[in-house]
């Protein structure tokens, strides 16, 4: 079996973004999703520092430091973009106007809880940023992360042990091994990579998995 790369996860997730959606891609791995938006779908990207209609990274010569995303990386704008202040920007977020937000994760639980901002409750430099607002406000939250950590530690868990970003917010989870629907307090696997058995996947998961009637094969859509 070959786990998906980060790009592979991003490419699979991008398939589940519908035409016409307004989407916030969280800092880090979710930013990759922008490279795999399916052809023929018009998707407007929001960044919480005040833009709808974010375009790709500019050419080096066109970098302008007033044109950055929430991760402070240079961006461009698409035709039909708009700028606004932080209050309106989080009004868009909190008011439920974004069809989707994609966030990275440290831990996800079947009740939809997400932990992605701190690994300990007494972090002396707790760094929250906009993730809690996005978790609370977007119409749906997709999470993308590796299924386990570098040491094989569980991240898809029965109950989050790290401080929560949002309670009961995750709708779908995309990992390097599978895609999981999160609903009614349960994990349901809808896609799995080839060459991985259900028992093997369960062994790498800290909560009981159910499987959809038809589980799709999760291929690497990011391959050239």
């Amino acid at each position, binding site marked *: 079996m070959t786990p998906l790369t980060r790009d592979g996860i991003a490419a699979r997730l991008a398939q589940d973004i519908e*035409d*016409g959606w*307004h989407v916030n891609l969280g800092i880090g791995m979710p930013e990759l999703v922008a490279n795999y938006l399916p052809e023929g779908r*018009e*998707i*407007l990207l*929001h960044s919480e520092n005040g*833009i*709808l*209609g974010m375009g790709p990274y500019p050419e080096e010569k066109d970098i302008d430091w007033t044109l950055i995303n929430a991760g402070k990386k240079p961006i461009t*704008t698409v*035709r*039909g*973009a*708009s*700028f*606004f202040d932080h*209050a*309106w920007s*989080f*009004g*868009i*977020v*909190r*008011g*439920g*106007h*974004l069809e989707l937000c994609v966030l990275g994760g440290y831990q996800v639980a079947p009740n939809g809880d997400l932990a992605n901002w701190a690994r300990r409750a007494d972090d002396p430099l707790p760094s929250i940023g906009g993730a809690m607002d996005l978790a*609370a*406000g977007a119409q749906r939250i997709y999470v993308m992360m590796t299924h386990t950590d570098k040491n094989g530690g569980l991240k898809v868990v029965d109950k989050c042990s790290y401080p929560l970003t949002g309670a009961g917010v995750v709708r779908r989870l995309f990992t390097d091994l599978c895609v999981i629907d999160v609903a009614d307090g349960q994990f349901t696997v809808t896609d799995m990579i080839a060459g991985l058995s259900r028992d093997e996947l369960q062994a790498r998961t800290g909560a009981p998995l159910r499987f959809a009637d038809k589980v799709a094969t999760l291929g690497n859509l990011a391959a050239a």
Partner: protein
Amino acid sequence: MLDRRCNDLAEAFAGIGDGARVMVAGFGEAGRPNMLIKALLDSGIKDLDLISNNAGDGETGLAALFRAGRVRKLTCSFPRGAMQDVMLDLVTRGEMELEVMPQGTLAERIRAGGCGIPAFYTPTSFGTLVAEGKETREFDGRGHVLETALKAEIGLVKAHKADRFGNLTFENLARNFNPLIAAAATRTIVEADEIVELGDIDPHNVHSPGVFTNYVFTTQPVSEESWQDWRKSA
């Protein structure tokens, strides 16, 4: 394709039943979506739970909704004007409920509705009749009143320019409640003087971002006589 343009007014109002809460933007006639008000009248939807700062004047626009008896409740800040005899009649006969509040409180409640703030405290009206029965609380030694967010199923908005993403600009003081209602309504229907190409509106100067907009129409004039159409079918 993200295209909010529409040519069928009936489509924009489809599935909306009697008793719907509808917000109508505008202050006086500035920024008042007359074509959409006419379409709402034509839709036949009744028992409207209407939110609009003013009550309208004369026989046209909002006034026609009241005269046609379509409004179950009006939430506003200023129900007087040329319509006040009709209003008084509806209210005293018990045919319409009236909820009046300070204009800034109305604006902030709608803004809160669009921005995901369920409630806030304001100093406005503290110590007055308007605050009676309301929850109050002191902050920094001053009394404040708790007010809750207002949202609606439908928002009717009048823009100057619109593009197919639903980005809007407003002219002069026609902005008023328009961007607030665009955000607070689940289904925001816009009439614009002009629909322009994507990119024709400077991203710095979009007054209401497209994410709030669901339908965009080009404004068509409503003839004076047609405001009386409801009388034929009534």
